[in-house]
């Protein structure tokens, strides 16, 4: 075995440039796929986490006749006495936070300009609202008893040239089917780094939203955050109610889950294409080596080397190319992933309905992706070496000795 790899190593050194180019083809393939897999992984993770934190929560308690495509404020479409319901849910051991939220359709206007947005009444003191507090760029966060303050996202503030302390008119639909409007003070400007969300979402304290819209002691949903998102199905099953339905993040984000399946299928095709190209390079290199060394193959078979040993010789060369190539590829790939994990790719507002993607995608490398890619690249390179190895093994000694 040592002799086999010693000979393979020396044979590869004979044409260093060709060997290095072949190994680099494997390296670039591996590095590219590692980065792509990490970007897709990062994108999916980011999208799911972001959507859960900003929009769906891990579970939502909804009235039985809840329709997410309408923003109905009729009392029969809302949850009555939501604070009590939320407190009961909070008592469950799996739950880290449960907070009522009220949704209304609104139009923010300043002078001649107006912009429609979703108005969300939140409990500023709930841990689930912390993410908006953390994203505060200027001004102050809301307080529960604030009667005039709203939070505006950065893109909307820029559109209206609003600063903290400025005033703007907000019109909302109300529980009785009418509309109401009031001049509000922009208490603060926030960002969640998700342009599409920030541009179209205005926050105000739940109590103010309830009185402003006439919803009174009602909420649209109870937003539930769990300690472990994998507990969602179990927790949802435990939450039984005759007046409420409990919907898990997986159910609410079916689009993302199916997008993830699509992304995985897309990655498989990409693996096939990129590794197919590198395999062609490796096959080409080794076929050239077989033809160059035909007479040597003849000598070795003449002195009694068996076909399988001749084959092993070329497979060993393929294995060495794979080892060098994958090693360098992993180093290069991990470097690229580290960079894009830190700085991300700017994608801006992708405008995908139903998925809240941050403006930056941060590459995220999983050990599973790295191991899978290493194994697949190794196997593909060995398969690429199989044809030249068979070509060499099938040579008749007499023919081969003629060169």
């Amino acid at each position: 075995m040592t002799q086999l790899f010693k000979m393979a190593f020396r044979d590869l050194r004979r044409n260093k440039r060709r060997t290095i180019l072949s190994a680099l083809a494997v390296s670039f393939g591996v590095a590219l796929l590692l980065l792509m897999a990490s970007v897709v992984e990062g994108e999916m993770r980011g999208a799911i986490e972001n959507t859960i934190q900003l929009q769906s929560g891990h579970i939502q308690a909804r009235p039985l006749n809840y329709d997410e495509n309408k923003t109905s404020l009729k009392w029969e479409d809302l949850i009555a006495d939501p604070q009590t319901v939320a407190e009961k849910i909070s008592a469950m051991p799996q739950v880290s936070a449960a907070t009522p939220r009220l949704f209304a359709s609104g139009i923010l206007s300043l002078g001649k300009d107006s912009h429609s947005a979703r108005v969300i009444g939140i409990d500023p003191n709930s841990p689930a609202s912390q993410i908006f507090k953390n994203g505060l760029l200027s001004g102050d966060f809301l307080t529960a008893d604030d009667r005039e303050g709203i939070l505006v996202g950065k893109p909307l503030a820029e559109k209206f040239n609003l600063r903290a302390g400025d005033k703007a008119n907000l019109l909302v639909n109300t529980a009785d089917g009418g509309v109401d409007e009031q001049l509000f003070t922009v208490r603060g400007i926030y960002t969640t780094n998700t342009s599409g969300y920030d541009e179209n979402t205005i926050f105000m304290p739940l109590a103010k939203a309830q009185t402003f819209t006439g919803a009174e002691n009602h909420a649209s949903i109870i937003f539930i955050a769990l300690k472990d998102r994998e507990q969602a199905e179990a927790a949802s099953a435990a939450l039984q109610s005759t007046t409420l339905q409990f919907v898990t993040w997986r159910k609410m984000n079916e689009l993302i889950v199916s997008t993830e399946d699509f992304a995985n299928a897309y990655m498989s095709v990409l693996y096939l294409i990129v590794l197919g190209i590198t395999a062609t390079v490796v096959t080409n290199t080794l076929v050239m080596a077989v033809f160059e060394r035909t007479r040597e193959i003849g000598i070795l078979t003449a002195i009694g080397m068996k076909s399988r040993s001749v084959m092993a010789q070329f497979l060993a060369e393929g294995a060495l190319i794979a080892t060098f190539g994958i090693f360098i590829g992993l180093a290069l790939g991990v470097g690229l992933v580290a960079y894009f994990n830190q700085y991300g790719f700017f994608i801006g507002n992708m405008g995908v309905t139903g998925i809240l993607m941050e403006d930056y995608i941060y590459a995220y490398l999983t050990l599973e992706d790295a191991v899978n890619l290493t194994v697949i690249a190794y196997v593909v390179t060995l398969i690429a070496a199989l044809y030249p190895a068979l070509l060499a093994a099938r040579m008749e000694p007499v023919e081969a000795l003629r060169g």
Partner: protein
Amino acid sequence: MEVTKITDATRVFKIGQLETRALRGVNLSVQSGEFTALVGPSGSGKTTLLQLIGLLDQPTSGSVFINGKNATRLNRNQRADLRRGSIGFIFQFFALIPTLTAYENVEMPLLLNGVNAAERKARVSEVLESVGLADRAHHRPDQLSGGQQQRVAVARALSIRPTFVLADEPTANLDTENGKQVMDIMKRLNQETGVTFVFATHDPRVIGYAERVVTLEDGVIVKDTK
């Protein structure tokens, strides 16, 4: 003792529609310890006959016996096994593996035969010493002269302690001095160790070393003198 025997051997090569009869019913028996030359003009069938004896090729008809056993219809791997254990080869071109040192080239057949490390070391040193190349053991072929390379090939052929050694025009690519040196070594080893040599040549100086001269013409043995 008969180390190899060829009976009624023919070898026909087909290239497209063209048939070439390289051997036309050859019978030859080689006894242990012989130093035999196969001579004849180019195209007379010397190399083809050596390839049949060496199990590198198979006859179209007829039989090949090695150490009394019929080896005519052995499969590829069985022929490789027999070659590995019993037959040494020296070729016209300096048939060494360029990436291996002289020592490693000589060691290769022993590795293929599964000889243990200590035994390999002893045998390689012994045969390199016997061809006068002990001090060139760790040189690569491109660091050796043509004559030295052919002596390494002789050492490699002898390292397995073969039943017989086949040499195809072993001096064809050497100058007179180096050719003589290689033939002197082969002859001395034949006398000292009793190993059988069968070599093809058309060089009259080389023929002079032979105890038996088998002459081929147009694929037929026309003369066999001892």
